[in-house]
């Protein structure tokens, strides 16, 4: 319960600092070993979304939002998209989206 609270606090801070520099929580997040950028996850790895910083409105309305479980289905070569499954939906994210999404891996 406390964790979700923290997530949302971090998130609304992210809104005010909309500078595209990644998640505001990133620095503190990187200290913990388990927290990675989505783009650094391997195919088949799963985790929980910690922070979404890119055009978060669009992604969130598609169901990709903090607190949700995420699985990387495939990563396409040549800087291609990263296909993830979140909840019951499958979403294809561009690499830049995937760089701005932090995930706590299992």
């Amino acid at each position, binding site marked *: 319960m406390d964790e979700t609270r923290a997530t949302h606090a971090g998130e609304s801070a992210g809104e005010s600092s909309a500078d595209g520099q990644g998640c505001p929580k990133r620095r503190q997040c990187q200290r913990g070993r388990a927290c990675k950028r989505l783009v650094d996850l391997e195919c088949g790895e799963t985790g929980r979304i910690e922070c979404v910083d890119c055009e978060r*409105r*669009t992604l969130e309305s598609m169901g990709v939002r903090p607190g949700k479980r995420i699985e990387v289905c*495939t990563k396409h070569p040549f800087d*291609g*998209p990263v296909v993830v499954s979140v909840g*019951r939906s499958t*979403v*294809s*994210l*561009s690499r830049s989206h995937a760089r701005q999404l932090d995930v706590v891996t299992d």
Partner: protein
Amino acid sequence: MAQSPTVLLMGHPNVGKSALFNRLAGASISESNYAGTTVEYTESQLALDDGTVPVVDVPGTFSLEPTDRAEAVAVEFLEDASDPIVVCVVDATRIERGLNLVLELLDRGHRAVVALNMWDEARQQGVDVDVEALSDLLGVPVVPTVATEGVGVDDLRSTLDRARPSSLSGIIDRLPPGVDGDLEGSVEGDDPAARWELVDAVVESAVTYRETAPSLADHLGRLTVAPKTGLPFAVAVLYGMWAFFTAVAGFFTDGYFVPLFDDHWLPWIQSVFPGEGGWLYFLLVGDPAATNSFEAFGVLTSGLFVAVGVVLPAILALYLVLALLEDSGYMARLAVLLDAAFHRIGLHGYAIVPMVLSFGCNVPGVAATRTLETDKQRFLTMTLLSVFIPCGAQLGVMLSLIPQYTGYILLYLLAGFFVFGAIINRLVPGSSPEVAVDIPPLRRPRPSNVSTKLSLRIRGFMTSAVPFVLAGVGVVNLLYLGGVVDWLATVLGPVLSGWFGVPSETVPALIAGFMRKDLAIAQLSAIPMTPFQTVMSVVMVSIYFPCVATFAMLIKEGRTGGGVLRVVGGALATLVAALFLWGGLLRLGGTLLGVA
């Protein structure tokens, strides 16, 4: 209220709004398994017990803050309608994100009814929704539906008069104790994070998820989107589609229509039509000595033959494979596989949708660019597809006349698409945002839907394309009679033979190309040329100008896509450059290889 309220079907893309609309209003508009099928609204009448009310199928939108043209249409609709009844269509398998939009709509004070569509799939996937609890919580009617089967549609119709507004604070008050009790009042206003918390609370008290084993479609869906398995599969699918298209088109044209027209219709009309040598004979029947329906070139001979005998079977076959591509949900997977390639030209994989539709006809292809985000992307796609993508009608005639070269010409044009795409991408200012794309589940195409779609498209072809083909033949013949063709041939001759190496007899084909590309190609068949000249002139006709219908569509879409002058001017500049450079390059290649 004097005026009856409008019923708006709103919801995310690909949740079954159009399917529901068809059931509710007895209409038949396109339903497809990818986001962005409906870019234009459709209005119809909905029969209720006490009269009829207007009902509108609104383009899908993920939220009420639009990110592209199609979504903007949806939001404008909502804002312009006076006190509408909003039927919020939710995909029950993804109820959370659907509810987020429902709450957004309720927060704006709209009267709403929730249709929990895809109820069948939700069952299979172990998503159990307590409809009554959900309805009590939300304070608006909730009806489970299976739009494709018509299940729940009557219930939905009869609950429309119970549509009501509902406040978010009211929903919070109704939450059962113990479910996220600390939400109080924090949701009012436009705070998405708080809204999501409310969604989670509602879901916690009305939805349970059961674990289910992934189905065959799930496995296939994953394999087709992974590069290692997906790319070979995509090549096989595309090649299979091409093979089917060529085989079916050839089967009907060569097997039935060529004999019918050449052996029976042509000689008959040549003999019975009065006034051989007169202008009317020339206009309608054409060459009295012609022995083949391509070469006679009268409205009733070549015109009819091209429209009905050649193009109709071709587009029937093409639309059939397109329908399978659309309804299976494979289109979005192709988009993902091709995403990296499209990035090189400033687009993203979803540009495949307008491109694929353009193979049927460029007109809907241009319209489909509304799902792209920026003016730059729309301009790029509209221009490239109207310059480089041959439509099904044109391909049909090519297959009938030069089957051995058609595939190569198509590949050359596709290469042009990417080369010029890369160039325009450098030259045109504007941004190419990254997108997230929703991938629909693979579904088995429903025969009834495929056949509805086919008959819609064929009817469209009969009413809008056939008259153009016939008129095109008439116009070219009139220009002949008026001496315009000869004059143009003299003027353009040096350029045609000097730069492209084709004879000046191709002028009538270029004129016909303004009207219809298929007709232009048919016209080329009557000219004695070397094989290379034929290929060259076919490439020229493909590139040099979009047909009238596409041109009109470019003007129309240009208005919302960055200004008519900019779009049409840019498209014209591109096609002139493409014609001379890409056409010239082909000739150069031909000369180097010694075939030109």
